[in-house]
């Protein structure tokens, strides 16, 4: 029967259709080869030794993706409420599962890893297809927050981000997730960021101070970061310095500096309109000069060519053009293809950091960390190089008037 032969043929060829294999290993955080390359680059030496030794050292401090650990110094940090809670960390890490009560485990891998990557390097499988690229938490720079440009976000900021997501990007809202899960994710996020930043600082230090990256490198165990069998470093001096680096990073999370927002003026409808008109003037004028990047009336028509800090780190700051073929080496080490950052088209509304007056005020005075978007210099008196708080409010009024379709509430008007 020809048909039965057909059936056999199809069954066989379809069965061979899938590639088989096992799960890829998740027992280790991938080392930060990208940053190792960046710090070694000027020495044009060997970066692997630095990234391996530092990677092991970091593992001894922070554990693995399946069983993260919190260094003692970090565990003790925080007045009253600790920065990280081991139980929440355990819930967020490891492989995906859930128990009979519906408690989720491995939340990071279920929700975040596909974009942000196992180590929070922003190099997850789907990362290259996102615009903007998913954040690399390891440099500890965050865009949307209530704190100063160089500060870490507060827990509340991260909470708000997870609840609201970032409209217009791939970053989802996790509002439907149980609150516990979001809290666990926040702990894990802070953990990944601290871990990543410690790794970066150790890499920089190992290259600058210990001679990693040079051809001969550190020769004795006393001045290298190789761990002894006991799991310690050979010299107490080195151990102290490692501890100091850890402390610096932890401290930055303990004391984020909030940005004070003055009380907004109360305007009636016509005052609001004239405030927006003054704001428009400022937007296009030389003092704020927003139009030079955002285009006339924020229509996004200005031609700019700039990159975010994550990209600049392995390109322009090393004197390498983003189009240079040498960039391929960095991409192999975990960077995504450099993509210019474009100042946003403001006339469509959708301010990612929040459309409420307070958030916009902060945005204008702080700018957006990690991007070319500058913060305005605020001065008490008009004239000179800065703008007054009232002028910032004018700009806020203008921004909100730009996006009539956006679901943005108007500045508090006296009705």
């Amino acid at each position, binding site marked *: 029967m020809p048909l039965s032969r057909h059936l056999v043929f199809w069954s066989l060829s379809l069965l061979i259709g*899938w590639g088989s294999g096992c799960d890829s290993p998740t027992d280790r955080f991938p080392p930060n080869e990208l940053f190792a390359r960046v710090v070694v680059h000027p020495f044009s030496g060997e970066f692997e030794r630095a990234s391996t030794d530092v990677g092991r050292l970091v593992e001894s401090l922070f554990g693995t993706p399946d069983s993260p650990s919190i260094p003692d110094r970090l565990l003790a940090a925080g007045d009253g409420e600790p920065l990280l809670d081991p139980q929440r960390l355990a819930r967020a890490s490891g492989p995906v599962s859930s128990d009979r009560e*519906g408690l989720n485990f491995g939340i990071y*891998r279920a929700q975040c890893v596909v974009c942000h990557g196992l180590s929070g390097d922003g190099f997850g499988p789907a990362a290259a297809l996102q615009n903007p690229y998913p954040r690399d938490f390891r440099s500890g720079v965050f865009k949307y927050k209530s704190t100063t440009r160089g500060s870490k976000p507060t827990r509340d900021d991260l909470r708000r981000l997870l609840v609201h997501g970032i409209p217009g990007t791939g970053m989802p809202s996790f509002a439907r997730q149980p609150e516990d899960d979001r809290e666990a994710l926040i702990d894990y996020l802070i953990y990944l960021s601290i871990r990543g930043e410690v790794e970066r600082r150790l890499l920089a230090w190992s290259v600058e101070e210990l001679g990693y990256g040079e051809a001969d490198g550190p020769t004795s165990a006393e001045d290298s970061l190789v761990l002894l069998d006991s799991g310690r470093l050979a010299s107490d001096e080195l151990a102290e310095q490692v501890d100091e680096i850890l402390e610096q990073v932890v401290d930055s999370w303990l004391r984020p500096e909030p940005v004070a927002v003055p009380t907004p003026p109360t305007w009636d409808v016509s005052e609001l309109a004239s405030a927006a008109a003054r704001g428009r003037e400022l937007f296009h004028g030389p003092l704020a000069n927003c139009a030079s990047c955002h285009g006339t009336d924020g229509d996004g028509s200005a031609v700019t060519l700039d990159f975010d800090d994550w990209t600049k780190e392995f390109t322009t700051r090393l004197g390498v053009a983003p189009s240079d073929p040498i960039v391929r080496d960095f991409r192999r080490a975990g960077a995504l293809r450099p993509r210019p950052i474009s100042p946003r088209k403001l006339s469509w*509304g959708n301010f990612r950091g929040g459309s409420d007056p307070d958030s916009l005020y902060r945005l204008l005075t702080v700018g957006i960390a990690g991007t070319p978007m500058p913060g305005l210099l605020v001065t008490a008196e008009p004239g000179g190089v800065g703008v007054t708080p009232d002028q910032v409010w004018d700009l806020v009024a203008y921004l909100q008037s730009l996006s009539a379709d956006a679901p943005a509430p108007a500045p508090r008007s006296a009705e």
Partner: protein
Amino acid sequence: MMNLLETDNRTEANASDSDGASASPGGTCSLSTGSAVGAAPPGRWLHRAAVVLVAMVWPLIWIGGQVTTYAAGMAVPDWPGTYGYNLFLYPYQTWLFGPFDLFIEHGHRLLAALVGMVAIVTVALAWLVEPRRWVRWLTVLLLVAVIGQGLLGGVRVILAARTLAMLHGCTAEIFFALCVTLMAVTSRWWWQQDSAKSPRAPTNGPGERVPGRGVIVAASALVVAAYLQVVLGAQLRHVQPTASPGGFTHLVATHLVTAVVVLGLALGIAWRLWTLVRSRTETSGGCGVLALLKPAWLVVSLVWLQIGLGLATWVSRYGVPTFAQVGPRSSSYLVKSQAFVESLIITGHVATGALVLVTATFLLLRMLRFRHTRLSLLAPTASGT
């Protein structure tokens, strides 16, 4: 012609063409709903069992897809039991009113067990009523496949292995296609094709044309491409946490290109069959090809639907791509994790992909059957003239 009349008189009563298609005197084909009059083919109960299987496996794929969409594959840590209970004895209150991921995972297991039982009944029926030996063995293959599929699902849980979850998803669709194959080869239409040898069947006209080799090859390619889409989609859904962005991007690109290939093949086949219907009615009035054209149309519609669902799936999962952000609404679209409607879109994309595959399989089987029976009918005529 006359020799045919003498050699085949099995279903003489079958004057109109199969599948309810009939030729009107004017030469156009119409699809009447009344089924052809004919002796009941053997094995009706086997066919009914196959239909039940198909009707159960599609929902099973939906639920299995929901398990993945909700990352609920590990909502029950043990197997074959559920939290220490026998599968069938797990307290229904905690199942129905407990956590959602446990609800779908346990539900998936229950429905799968039910499908396994129907598969057993199917084998029994086949050995009781089915005259064709290869069809009887096909049911055995079906049973083996469903057992294997269950084991694969179980091992996936015990080893907590994502790769096996992906395989489990891929083999599910093969099982579905096998069920549809059984349904197709036990159908009334299938049996009636022998009656095409009847002189009164309007397929013996001088202008008789059967689907050529080219269309058959295209239909085979369609099945392969549709399955390739299933495999690619499963790899995207079950991507490993440490997979490289380059590899993932490559997969997405291949998935998109293959979608275009699938659409092109489906359109090409439908168009070719349509020209066959047209030329047949002009010359001979035979409308048998309609029985092929209908599933071909169905494939085309499903592929369009599937492409729409695929785009919607991307948007639900990763937001509106930059090039499509053309206004305030599209540029402020917010992705929502585990939102219900979005989960239905995403799982619907999986389920519709399965439908495309099995409809294409169904079409291919019908084409082969049609061509085979008509050619074996024509051959003696050709030698006689």
